[in-house]
């Protein structure tokens, strides 16, 4: 796909080009939004806001990087803002040291499907979920996460460690169940 031409057409106000750009990225970006939110409705809200931001700021895209990466960053930022803005996420985004989970260094093999893994991540508390997504999936450093979320780097690290261990424990449990189910089948 010729992104250069597509972006130019979008900037000219060509609705067909805008639709094409949307359809090209909407599926994957909804996956991104899905990971940060707790429901598909919220995910679609974030997707909508994100694409509005994309089209309104498309003139700022400099073609030096990938368009997909640029759109993805906007989606992630929109998702973070969405979580900060909405009260149902806001209360749980307070990164307290209250709940502690056992930390395990034993990395299991992820045998789950993509959807199952995403659903597991979504079951994490919102703070854990966000930090896990930002660090493990998006590749942000803890310093960057601290700046994005307005928390200390150390908090981000500890939260991530707990999120990770919690997720691993869930994966292990699920994997065991899956294995048992597999063995139980005739």
């Amino acid at each position, binding site marked *: 796909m010729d992104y250069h031409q597509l972006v130019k057409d979008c900037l000219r*106000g060509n609705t067909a080009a805008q639709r094409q750009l949307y359809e090209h990225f909407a*599926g994957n970006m909804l*996956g991104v939004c899905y990971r940060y939110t707790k429901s598909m409705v919220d995910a*679609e809200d974030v*997707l*909508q806001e994100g694409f509005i931001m994309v089209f309104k700021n498309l003139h700022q895209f400099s073609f030096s990087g990938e368009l997909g990466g640029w759109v993805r960053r906007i989606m992630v930022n929109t998702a973070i803002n969405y979580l900060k803005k909405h009260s149902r996420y806001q209360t749980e985004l307070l990164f307290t040291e209250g709940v502690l989970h056992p930390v395990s*260094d034993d990395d299991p093999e*992820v045998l789950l499907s*993509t959807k199952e893994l995403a659903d597991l991540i979504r079951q994490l508390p919102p703070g854990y979920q966000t930090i896990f997504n930002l660090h493990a999936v998006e590749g942000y450093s803890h310093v960057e996460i601290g700046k994005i979320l307005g928390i200390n780097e150390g908090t981000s690290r500890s939260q991530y460690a707990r999120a990770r261990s919690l997720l*691993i424990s869930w994966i292990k449990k699920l994997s065991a169940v899956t294995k048992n189910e597999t063995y139980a089948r005739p």
Partner: protein
Amino acid sequence: MHDPKFEKEVQQKLEELSFSPSDAVWTRVEQAVNGKKRRRVPVFWLFLLPALVMTGAGVIYFSGTRKVPATAMAQRPAIVPASPVTSPAATPPASPSTASSLPAAAPTSSAPANPVYPSSTATSAHTNPTYTKPTDTYRPSSGMSVVRQSHARRAAPAAISGVAAADETSGEGVLSGHSAEAAVSSVKSVASTATAKAVTARVTLPGRNDFGRHYAAPTAARLPTTSQAFPAKAPIRLKPKYSWESGFAGGIGLSSQNKTLFQQPTIMSDLSPNAAPITGRPKTYTSQVQPDLSYWAGIVVQRPLSKVLTLSLGLDLHYYSTKVQIGEKVDNSLSASSSPSLLTGQSQYVQTAAAYPYYYSVGNKDVFVNRYYFLELPGSVVWQVNHSRNLPLFWEGGFSLAYLVSSNALYFNSKSGVFYKDGNATKKTQINLTTALLVGLPIRGLRLQAGPQVQYGLTSLQSQGSGMQHLFYGGLRLVLLPGKAKN
């Protein structure tokens, strides 16, 4: 430290995560992105359609009220004679002018030239039974539109009643049966006033005084006075707040020294030092001052005066340059001993040049660039010609006060025929007239105005000599204002 294997595995898995969003998402995105553009059309029509309807209604209303009374009034002479007050003997004979003014509906009728008009009130019928101003003509006036309209509304029923009366009298009145039929046909034409045509000929109508007494007074009485209809309220004045905003301005172009607006000065000298000794008679030397590069830059502050006018002030440093062909450079200290030929017979040439360390003879050996650096204080008014969002046009006009900061310009003395530097030869203070046509180009939160500019020095550049030389600048003007337009 965690093993990144888990993260990589998770990352890989989640890269594949994809869902198909519902159609409502795109619909909402499209509305949000392109909604404003689409909304303009209905809003535009929302205002335009009522405006068109009102304009059309106004045209029909006012054009109709001008036509109908003339037609209706012209019909009246054929109708009214049924009134018992009027008799053929009592009416004066029809004059050719009034007869010709009758409508085509009753050309052969014996209608009197001075018809009796039925009054709208019973009292006026007795007090003023006859029409006494046959020579008065219809003169449209904007102030009489209400009167005419009320008159026209009364014309048709009055005419019909007149016809009925004519039928009853059948011959005793002025109208014959034939003319009564003509009157009926004319009444029909009155009833269908939508198709009535304006009478272009002189139409005999009552005087304005009669109009006022018969028709205007009741109508005016029904109208509420201004104070009754609209109780006095303190007027609310919504004056927009205009504030100063600053930006940068600059330009580049060509400058020249003009004798008049478009005539460049010519340097002429009969004292060519190279030619005189050889030929024995002086050779006339001619050179024109050529235009050269000019540019300027500075700051500008603007304050809107109204929606279309903006006051603009600034502070600029303006560089002007012109080119002139010169001859040899003569060092004054050496010339007295090494070039005696130059001195012979050219006393004034030496006298003028002797006061300066060096000078240039006339000739075409070299090109000298006269440079002027002016500090300018421009003041202008910007008129926004149109209110286009994409390409707004601005016309700027004003004056600038300039002070010469530095110059290396050569002064040409036509008497001595030499170029020499003289700091006092140039007027340091200049007043310039400037104008520019600019087009607005919005660029990412900035307002760039660009367009051609011309500037003409009203004051002469030279403080000495008879040759008036004015600085002229023509080029591109750029004004950069941060932020979006506030008004």
